[in-house]
């Protein structure tokens, strides 16, 4: 089955810094999702991005499907950005189940 790998596993930033999180996947995909799990455990859907670039405020994501990777950019980080960021790929012939990466744990210090 498809493998999803994320890097780095953890990241510590000072407030205001920028960061790039990476997600590699082992096979061609038709969709890719980025989630943020906040310190209280809630999973929030950030982007659905099968290809190209999308932006939402200080966050943006780019997926290059032909090269099997996706990047999540966080600019001018804030303490509220802390948490774990997951990328996940749905498997269409198995009910759209999501295959998750191991996550990148981000800590933004004031």
């Amino acid at each position, binding site marked *: 089955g498809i493998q999803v790998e994320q890097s780095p596993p953890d990241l510590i930033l000072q407030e205001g810094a920028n960061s790039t999180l990476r997600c590699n996947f082992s096979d061609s995909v038709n969709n890719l999702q980025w989630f943020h799990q906040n310190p209280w455990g809630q999973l929030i859907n950030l982007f*659905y991005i099968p290809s190209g670039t999308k932006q939402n405020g200080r966050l943006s994501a780019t997926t290059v499907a032909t090269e099997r990777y996706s990047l999540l950019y966080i600019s001018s980080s804030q303490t509220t950005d802390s948490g774990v960021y997951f990328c*996940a790929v749905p498997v269409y012939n198995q009910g759209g189940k999501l295959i998750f990466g191991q996550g990148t744990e981000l800590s933004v210090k004031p």
Partner: protein
Amino acid sequence: NAGVTQTPKFRILKIGQSMTLQCTQDMNHNYMYWYRQDPGMGLKLIYYSVGAGITDKGEVPNGYNVSRSTTEDFPLRLELAAPSQTSVYFCASSSSGVDGYTFGSGTRLTVV
């Protein structure tokens, strides 16, 4: 619009006990999922359903059972709880199985 509602939020079970984790969604989504998340790990799929009356196993189904009698409800049953089932359980739904996934707030289960 409540989205995906899970109950209870926390539970402690003794080894060998049974319980049902409840999951309800009010978005009329056909696709529903149960995941578990162990500390420091990503989520792994336990069971999923593509519509009422249809369920299938995910990656880690052993020790669990599900049913889907209505579109709204997708309960997860633990029989004979074991310490290895200590985890955080998330229920999710999707309208299409392609995007628009919505997750519940999770159930933190400890088996002692």
